[in-house]
């Protein structure tokens, strides 16, 4: 498997190993372990896949197969803010495409992309389950409902402002 040299330098194995060991190296715990790794890093670094495979004693390809099967897992780092645009049935009927368009314009990132300045990653999701507030999106784990292209602009610039005021981690 190709592992980026950058990954090897930047990631400490201790976190990954701690997560793998916490889950007691059981095959059934692969998904929870991967979820914790994504929580810690924002994505699944390729090196983590190799390390988990080693820990559990299965080929890395098997773990890679799991990572790519589930849409929750990302192999690329995310921007500072994660926007999940809901494309559920109710949102679709209420103009989700227009909302997606407006988000792309406000952030500079189309669905599936991260903006150049690294501030926003935009994802398309099947349904957030907030259908009666359609159309909606989730920005950093907070759901915003009853959106209009206009309100998107406001919300996105608010997110930007808040972050300029608070020092980043």
């Amino acid at each position, binding site marked *: 498997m190709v592992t980026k040299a950058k990954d090897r330098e930047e990631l400490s194995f201790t976190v990954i190993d701690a997560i793998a060991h916490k889950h007691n190296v059981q095959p059934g715990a692969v*998904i929870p372990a991967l979820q914790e790794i994504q929580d810690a890093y924002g994505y699944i670094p390729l090196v983590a896949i190799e390390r988990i495979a080693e820990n559990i004693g299965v080929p890395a390809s098997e773990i890679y197969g799991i990572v790519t*099967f589930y*849409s929750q897992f990302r192999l690329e780092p995310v921007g500072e803010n994660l926007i999940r645009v809901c494309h559920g049935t109710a949102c679709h009927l209420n103009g989700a495409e*227009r909302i997606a368009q407006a988000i792309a314009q406000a952030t500079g990132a189309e669905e599936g992309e991260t903006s150049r300045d690294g501030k926003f990653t935009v994802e398309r*999701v099947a349904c957030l*389950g907030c259908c009666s507030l359609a159309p909606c999106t989730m920005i950093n784990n907070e759901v*915003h409902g009853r959106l209009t292209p206009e309100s998107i602009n406001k919300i996105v610039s608010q997110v930007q402002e808040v972050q300029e005021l608070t020092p980043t981690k």
Partner: protein
Amino acid sequence: MSWERDKRNGSWVVKVGLASCGIAAGGQRVYDALKAGIIARGLKNNVEVRRTGCMGMCYSEVLVEVFPPLGRRVFYRNVTPEQIQRIIEEHIIGGSPVTEWIIPADEIDDLLSKQRRIVLRNCGLIDPESIDDYLAADGYKALDKALHSMSPQVVIDEVTSSGLRGRGGAGFPTGIKWGFARKSPGSQKYVICNADEGDPGAFMDRSVLESDPHSIIEGMLIAGYAIGASEGYIYVRAEYPLAIHRLEIALDQARERGLIGETILDSDFDFNICIRQGAGAFVCGEETALMASIEGKRGMPNFRPPFPAQSGLWGKPTNINNVETLANISWIILNGANAYNALGTEKSKGTKVFALAGKIARGGLIEVPMGISLKEIVFDIGGGTSEGLDFKAVQMGGPSGGVIPASMADTPVDYDSITKTGAIMGSGGLIVMDESACMVDVAKFFLNFIQDESCGKCTFCRIGTLRMREILDRISRGEGKEEDMEHLEELAQGVKKASLCGLGQTAPNPVLTTLRYFRDEYEAHIQEKICPAKKCEALITYEIIPEKCPGCGLCAKYCPVEAISGEKKKSHLIDPDKCIRCGLCMSMCRLGAISVH
């Protein structure tokens, strides 16, 4: 109405609905403002501010319920933090409600008079993060009754004679399913709660988990006792962080009180429950795929038989029930099978929860007795369509279901009648569509979803649905051919027959039902190259009506491709060659100066 049964100690009770919908609408800020306002005015001892789950009236979020020590309770709707001061001063201190912000009593009556809340019995009433609230609402009494006065077989018989059928969509009788798992030999058995609610347009399970998590835990414990299991898993979508958070709280509380663990309630019954988060694969709602996912594999379905009751998780007998099914259990045990099967129709007993959404005036979470008509749901409870356009159809059962036209709105809601229409009861997503919905577009929408979510194991599901989507794409671009409808039907039959699991077997339903009931719309796309609902981008043009356009430039500012030009204060023009038909300009224009045809 169960709504009236709170206990108060001579004080005011003010509740804020804080399930995901309420929070998305700003509920937490309202709650904080309310708490701060009450403390600031020194009313802490006279007014109790409570958090609760989903009140069901999602169209009015943020909802605040104010219940005076004497007199009627009222609901404030669309509450903002700024309104709190007036509510406290005029209503709580002054004694006269702020009438213009209140939901009228007759609207509440319309909403509730045809509902029967069993699954939702505690939703919007109790604090979902308080086990004491659940206990006060007869919580864990059914477990106590089952453990101390009923044998496992008696529990199964009771559930069987209640007539409860699986609420995940397939409708298999729950008691019989439990009986299979009980009869399977083996000392280690599992109970799984399927909370991988993946249908777009469905939020019943999320709401129940967020509003009354203990009812699910109690249902699982009773199921575990009945089949002889000692371990349970709740498989819940990672997209539902609040549901997971509240489940974790509830599990900790139940463990602390000895309701989960060893020798539960001084019986010899041991049971443990843990949560597994789904990692975003729709197919994992299928039970064999779900178990593969818990085992840490790619969530791909397996052939049945063996059924999970014989060989399930880790090869052991396993019983899988959906959230809503489990939420019914303790009510049935406590009130008896006969109280439950008195509701509903001959073959569909009890109630069904629906997530009412789409172009509906009063969208939200409702629970109705089986046998009620779709018309009653849409018009009497839901208040009709939301934007003044005619009611066109309802979509039931998500990507596995179908579209039922307005002309069949008298169809009663029971498993058999809904199946006859070509749709399915499904898990409870009920999307209302008005005249603005294009049925070709709807079919395409669901096939796109299936294409994303097919696990790829079966060729027909993987490639057959792709070919179907290509045909629909073509039709929506105005390039459809005469034989396309026939090809769609032929492919649909193939996909149905040659797919292993429910996802593939039901995937063509949205296409088949739209073809069956809205054939004329397909024909209009193919023969006349028009989209009657003005939805399909390639078949429509946007134009500015010169008389209405004051030249404010707002549309031009937002157009993503700079297709709109014009001088300030003069009417603008859209360049049809540049225009990508996103419709952003039309939704931005406040004067209705942009038309589509």
